[in-house]
């Protein structure tokens, strides 16, 4: 519906590795260019020390003529030994040029790699957002918001780090090794073995070390969590702390986790020191081996000073990035967990998956609503609503009364198809709800939920949501009808006042009124108000009801409320208990009939007479 995603067949669960390669495959040409550029850049970078080597061997140190075919070629490229000897600026400039060329390819490589990796992340985030919006409410109600949010943020971030930094780093290290070995072999085979045999050890050391100390990272995270929890608890409860004069007690309470966090982190530092010192030592030993063995070979005429110089320079380029590999590889486990967690969301089918027919009439509905033996339950054993039969004519107002848990809100959820009923039929204008296109269906409603949700935007944007075309005048009118216009005017920025974190906090009643304005502005054929006036004071309630009354006939209205003043205006009232309709009637008939409605009515009238007497 909103994207191609929903039309394709539901995604099958894939293994994390296949998921990653599928993601990378989407940008394969960008990754391809990046890889090619990286090879070229590395080749050019390696050339820089080789120019030095060739110059040393052929121009500066000509004592023993053991010539090396690769360095021979390099010096010939520069114009031959004689020419270089008379103009030493040539190798100097060549070094700069090769370095710049390497730099340019490096730049291109990084650019493409970043575009590919960040592109994948962006797309993944977009798809996740889209998918979540389309998930059935059943899934959203059952899952924990915090958990879902964590998957969308920290798991995605883990993935981003992996794609944008780790993949690139691993690729770079392997390309460095893959490129340096042939170059070294061309210079001197024996020295190559000496110069590289510690590299696998360096990688494995990192891998196993971090695998072993993984637990401590978790412990540090946990003790940080504990500390933050204490701080949070203390600051949100600071009034209690002050009320009981418990500052000293709190300071003592804070000291322990604070100390523990410090100790845990110092412990981690010790592990880090234990790792980096030997790891640096291994790198230095590898270079040292090349230096000593190379020198020994040079003395025996098996190699040259230039070659030795080249080996040392190449090792310096390759070794330092390579030693990070082990650490990155240990993080792979974390990435796989994150990908699987994200995947779990993607494998949840969207709510429209089983919609076969999707009627989308080109005109709004008239508003004839009919429940026929409708039953629904969240769980197998206990029905939430049972055998509901009820008709509302276009333009009529239906009021629903009942204690909490009686099933009133469920009826609304069924009408909006947040849930589908298990048995019976629900129809609007004679069309079965299940045949209607969901977005068309929801477009027919103006809804005020029990706990209205407002977006962190301006008030005007909030009211305008759902009816983007509306004129400012209409927005104001809707706000007046919902008795919120004057309140808004009193805010510093009026309708442009930001709500939420960056702006002001509205009271429960104000939120409800903004939501009512939003629903009215849509001018919908059907208006659903789920306890929408509970936090509004009596006078305002009266005014809003009068305003809604003026709309009478324009929309079919369904109201859930507890105050008789709200209910009395309805054309029809149903009283619900334990998921069933137990009474149906109007204000007049229900006040005469024994039941909840009458009892509530009596409280009202009895008081009036008793107190005014």
């Amino acid at each position, binding site marked *: 519906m909103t994207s191609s995603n929903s039309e394709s067949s539901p995604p099958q669960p894939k293994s994390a590795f296949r998921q990653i390669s599928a993601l990378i495959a989407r940008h394969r040409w960008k990754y391809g260019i990046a890889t090619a550029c990286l090879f070229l850049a590395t080749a050019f970078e390696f050339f820089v020390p080789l120019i030095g080597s060739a110059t040393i061997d052929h121009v500066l140190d000509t004592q023993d003529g053991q010539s090396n075919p690769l360095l021979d070629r390099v010096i010939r490229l520069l114009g031959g030994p004689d020419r270089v000897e008379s103009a030493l600026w040539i190798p*100097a400039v060549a070094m700069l040029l090769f370095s710049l060329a390497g730099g340019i390819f490096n*730049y291109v490589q990084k650019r493409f790699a970043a575009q590919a990796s960040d592109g994948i992340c962006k797309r993944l985030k977009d798809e996740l957002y889209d998918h979540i919006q389309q998930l059935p409410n059943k899934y959203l109600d059952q899952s924990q918001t*915090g958990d879902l949010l964590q998957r969308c943020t920290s798991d995605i971030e883990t993935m981003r780090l992996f794609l944008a930094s780790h993949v690139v780093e691993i690729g770079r290290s392997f390309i460095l090794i893959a490129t340096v070995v042939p170059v070294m072999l061309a210079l001197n085979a024996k020295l190559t073995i000496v110069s590289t045999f510690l590299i696998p050890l360096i990688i494995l050391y990192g891998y196993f070390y971090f695998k072993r100390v993984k637990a401590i990272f978790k412990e540090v995270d946990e003790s940080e969590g504990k500390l933050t929890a204490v701080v949070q608890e203390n600051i949100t409860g600071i009034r*209690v702390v002050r009320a*009981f004069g418990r500052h000293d007690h709190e300071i003592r309470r804070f000291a322990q986790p604070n100390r523990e966090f410090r100790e845990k982190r110092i412990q981690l530092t010790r592990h880090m020191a234990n790792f980096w010192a030997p790891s640096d030592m291994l790198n230095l030993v590898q270079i040292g081996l090349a230096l000593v063995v190379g020198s020994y070979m040079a003395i025996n005429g098996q190699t040259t000073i230039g070659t030795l110089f080249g080996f040392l320079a190449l090792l310096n380029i390759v070794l330092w990035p390579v030693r990070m590999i082990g650490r990155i590889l240990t993080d792979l486990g974390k990435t796989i967990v994150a990908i699987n967690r994200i995947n779990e969301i993607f494998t949840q089918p969207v709510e429209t998956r089983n919609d076969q027919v999707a009627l989308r009439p080109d005109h709004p509905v008239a508003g004839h609503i009919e429940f026929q033996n409708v039953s629904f339950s969240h769980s197998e054993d206990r029905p939430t609503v049972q055998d509901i039969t009820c008709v509302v004519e276009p333009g009529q107002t239906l009021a629903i009364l009942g204690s*909490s848990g009686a099933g009133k809100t469920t009826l609304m959820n069924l009408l909006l198809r947040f849930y589908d009923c298990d048995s019976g039929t629900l129809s609007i204008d004679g069309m079965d709800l299940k045949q209607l296109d969901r977005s068309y269906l*929801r477009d027919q409603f103006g809804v005020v939920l029990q706990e209205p949700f407002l977006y962190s935007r301006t008030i005007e944007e909030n009211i305008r949501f759902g009816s983007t075309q509306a004129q400012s005048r209409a927005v104001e009118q809707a706000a007046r009808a919902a008795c919120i216009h004057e309140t808004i005017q009193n805010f510093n920025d009026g309708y442009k006042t930001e709500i939420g974190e960056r702006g002001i906090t509205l009271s429960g009643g104000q939120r409800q009124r903004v939501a009512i304005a939003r629903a009215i502005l849509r001018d919908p054929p059907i208006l659903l108000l789920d306890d929408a006036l509970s936090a509004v004071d009596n006078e305002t309630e009266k005014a809003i009801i009068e305003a809604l009354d003026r709309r009478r006939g324009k929309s079919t209205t369904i109201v859930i409320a507890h*105050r008789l003043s709200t209910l009395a205006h309805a054309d029809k009232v149903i009283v619900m208990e334990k998921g069933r309709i137990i009474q149906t009637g109007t204000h007049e008939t229900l006040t005469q009939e024994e039941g909840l409605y009458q009892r509530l009515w009596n409280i009202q009238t009895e008081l009036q007479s008793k107190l005014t007497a």
Partner: protein
Amino acid sequence: MNAPLEEDEIQNNINVDLWKRIFQFALAHKRLLIPLTASAIALSVIESLLPIATKFAVEVIEFGKPVEALWFPAAFYFGLSLALSILVYVFIRCAGSISHHISHDIKRDCFKRLQELEFAFYDSQPTGSLISRLTADCDRLSNILAWGFLDLVWGIFFVIAMAITMLILNVELALLVLTTIVPLVFLSSFFRKRMLIASRQIRKHNARITASYNEGIHGVKTTKTLGRERENLSEFESMSSDMFNASVRRAILGAIYLPLVVAIGSVGSGLALWYGGANALSGDLSLGTMIAFMSFAGQFFFPINQIAMVLAELQGAQAAGERVMGLLATYPKIKDSESVIARIEQHKSSVDSTHALDGYANRIERIEFRNVGFTYNEKEIVLDDFNLSVKRGQTIALVGPSGGGKSTIVSVLSRFYEPTSGALEFNGVDYRQRSLDWLQSQLGIVLQTPHLFNGTISENIRYGRLDATDEEIESVARIVNAHEFISNLENGYETVIGEGGARLSTGERQLISFARALVADPQIFIMDEATSSIDTETEALIQEGMQRIFQGRISFVIAHRLSTIRSADQILFIREGKIAEQGTHTELMDLKGSYFDLYLKQFRRERVSDELEAS
């Protein structure tokens, strides 16, 4: 949930004075700071000597010495390597430990100060920002203090040590190669700052994306009813595009910077080859020295990059530093005055059960508000010329519209705020002449939202009096009718209630907070909307014990439950900071004024909700 990290603009200047003050925290750990500095300097010297090993080795080959002569460069190299590894170990240990010690100390001091500050401070500070001050800000500062300091020392000494080594080897060549430092410094400071800004942009966009997911998930029902899925998605897409662009921009900055500094390194090496090569040809310079110079030239990048990064970080973290130091420079305004401290000192030896620690009588017979006025900001008057006299044993109910000043009255009484005009007297003595600790230990307060701490039930009740015995805890729990539900829990009084008491219902939490307020047997008992968020059943339980709670104390009750209000000795209807109506329930009902209206409305509401809950 974690508090949002505050992102600050990167400031243009480095506020030396501020960092000096912050550095005091590091100076407290001289035991670690001295080895850290020493190892950073030693490390820089050793690193600058490593290329010399190559020089020695090459010279052995160059001058055709025997193979045995190789022992010297080999020993030199491996000796340096070993020393270097040991130093790496030492500085990681020291820098890490210092950083965590500093972080611990700053947090300890900030936390302590936060406990002392008065309500007015908290009114002006959003909770989230205080939490992030204590967590993210402190960690950032401690990182900079330890690692930034290390990098700075190491970087500066590395450059100096390399320069000296080079100058000793060959002055002319050294000066030539050293010129490459100038563009390095310029480029590094230029790019590092921009890279820092770009990284912040990424974080900022990331935070927006998180907020957007949050809104998307919480508001999914509303979004569906408004049919806004498509618009939401396209808005989200524009945010994720911003994030994409920022990430790519950051990557590109790095992609330009690194090749440039590497190229400068090649210029240095090239110069060494060119000029040094010519000298080598003429025999003025050994090949070994020239090779050493070539590798020196490639290494200047590292220290200069580090220094530039630290300086950029300092600019970036300055605002965090200002916030933390600002908090530590804020002192509580409400505290014992000099004369009170003197009195406490004077009566130190003569404290007994009838006298408080400040020498006055412990027993509160009478509380008097004399023309008390209160305003937060001079413009908006919250309390105006408030007069009231209460005797021991009396209960005062405060009713009226929200924002009328009811809570302010009890806050001023508790001395969370002090009157801005007039005075509040205990037994005829201005309470500013009394010990603050004494006063606040006479209070038992129950707030609207019962804030409990994570821990067991008995720990929470004991919060009211830390030395209360288990028997005393049980007996107050009985008074407020909490004993029954507590005994029914699996672990009774030792049940852990979770964060904020999450494992209990609101009503149960409120019962515990009543017990907590009572366990200290306070002389003044305050209920601030304490029964507004609880169900009828709990309300009935509390009601039962209410008379025993009020007995023999001075009680102030802000309430809208009629049963609580009706039994008060005096009811004050507070509107716009003034007493609009005052009297007993019957007197005020006869008046048929605001109280009468309020009563009628509330009565109806309570009956209706009783009816709905019962069915």
